[in-house]
């Protein structure tokens, strides 16, 4: 039993090292990837454009709920004027990057894992290696950087649509004063402190989620069950990584 524990620990450390090496390799491939922008653009279409609808619709509804719930709470203190501030700060600082990253993990991360996993199961990756084509460079790196680019864009769209959703519920339906809604928001949201840090968060989430998805796909067992398991693990690990990183970043940035 002690031997099993030791093997488990050693394996874990080994896997961490392997994952770190792969992460560094992918990161270093920025310039090599940018020399072939067509590959990245194709992947941005795949992970970004196709995630746009779910991100925008979810952002709208999150904004609706924030508007309703925020009004309900603030109304008790007679300060429903601060609704705009509440909606904007919650979205820009926390909900925008985090929920967008979770949705992105579900929508784009899983399909990346499944795609890479099936490529592996179909021995396409092995075939590339046989032809002296580095699969990490031509398959993984463009997808990795496409994810890193698409994530902040998606998070910004999520936040913007969410604020509009809060405006629709708060101002148009409930009847909070429109001037107070926007001016309180502008008084309380700082461009660098709040919006800028939200963007930094979403970039970090982009790195984390895309890397988890690609790693799980690349390391999947080359069987149908292996690909299925890898896809599940992508969602679980990516979501946990996003939430843990969010706590860390919030503690670092906003105190």
């Amino acid at each position: 039993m002690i031997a099993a524990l030791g093997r488990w620990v050693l394996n874990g450390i080994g896997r961490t090292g392997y994952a770190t090496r792969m992460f560094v390799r992918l990161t270093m491939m920025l310039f090599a990837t940018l020399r072939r922008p067509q590959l990245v653009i194709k992947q941005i279409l795949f992970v970004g454009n196709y995630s746009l609808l779910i991100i925008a619709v979810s952002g709208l509804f999150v904004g609706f709920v924030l508007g309703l719930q925020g009004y309900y709470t603030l109304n008790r203190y007679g300060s429903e004027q601060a609704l705009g501030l509440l909606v904007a700060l919650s979205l820009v600082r926390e909900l925008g990057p985090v929920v967008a990253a979770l949705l992105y993990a579900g929508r784009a991360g899983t399909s990346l894992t499944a795609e890479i996993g099936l490529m592996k199961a179909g021995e396409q990756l092995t075939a590339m290696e046989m032809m002296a084509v580095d699969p990490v460079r031509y398959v993984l790196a463009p997808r990795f950087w496409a994810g890193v680019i698409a994530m902040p864009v998606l998070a910004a769209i999520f936040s913007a649509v969410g604020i509009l959703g809060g405006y629709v519920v708060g101002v148009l339906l409930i009847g909070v004063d429109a001037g107070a809604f926007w001016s309180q928001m502008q008084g309380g949201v700082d461009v660098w402190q709040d919006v800028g840090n939200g963007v930094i968060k979403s970039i970090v989430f982009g790195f984390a989620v895309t890397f988890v998805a690609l790693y799980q796909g690349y390391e999947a067992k080359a069987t149908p069950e292996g690909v299925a398991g890898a896809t599940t693990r992508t969602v679980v690990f990516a979501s946990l990584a996003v939430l843990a990183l969010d706590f860390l970043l919030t503690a670092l940035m906003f105190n």
Partner: protein
Amino acid sequence: MKKTALDFWVGLFVLLGAAALLFLALKAGNMSSLSFQSTYTVKLDFDNVGSLKPRAPVKSAGVTVGRVTQISFNPQSYQAVVTIAIDSQYPFPKDSSAQILTAGLLGEQYIGLLPGADTDMLKNGDSITMTQSAVVLENLIGQFLYNKAADSGASKGAATSTPPAPGAK
């Protein structure tokens, strides 16, 4: 490298993201009021700043003319030093006075500037010493209770022994 239909959609996606960021910066944030025009800084000494925060507005006649940039403590005079940046387009006389006011009953605190009558204007790095501290509710209640107690004590004393002093009730 030839253009493809794909470029169009990806370009649209990125532009949409840029528009969203711009919306967040201009409409939700205070980029528009974050003036890039030149300002001059003035130091204010307060006995008590209450809950004044950095970036709180500085208003004169109700119009925002600047912002609080920094709040620090002076260990020599045991006073709070508030540094404010006023837009250069609003010069103020040297003998202006400042007070910390509250927007509404429980609203955020801001600095009110009352212009003086001096012909010299405030320059960068000047300080204003005529200040009025923030109203701290606890002190106010304490003072009220103390006065009340003093009043009732004085009236009791007047009723029993000493002749009433003029003006005491």
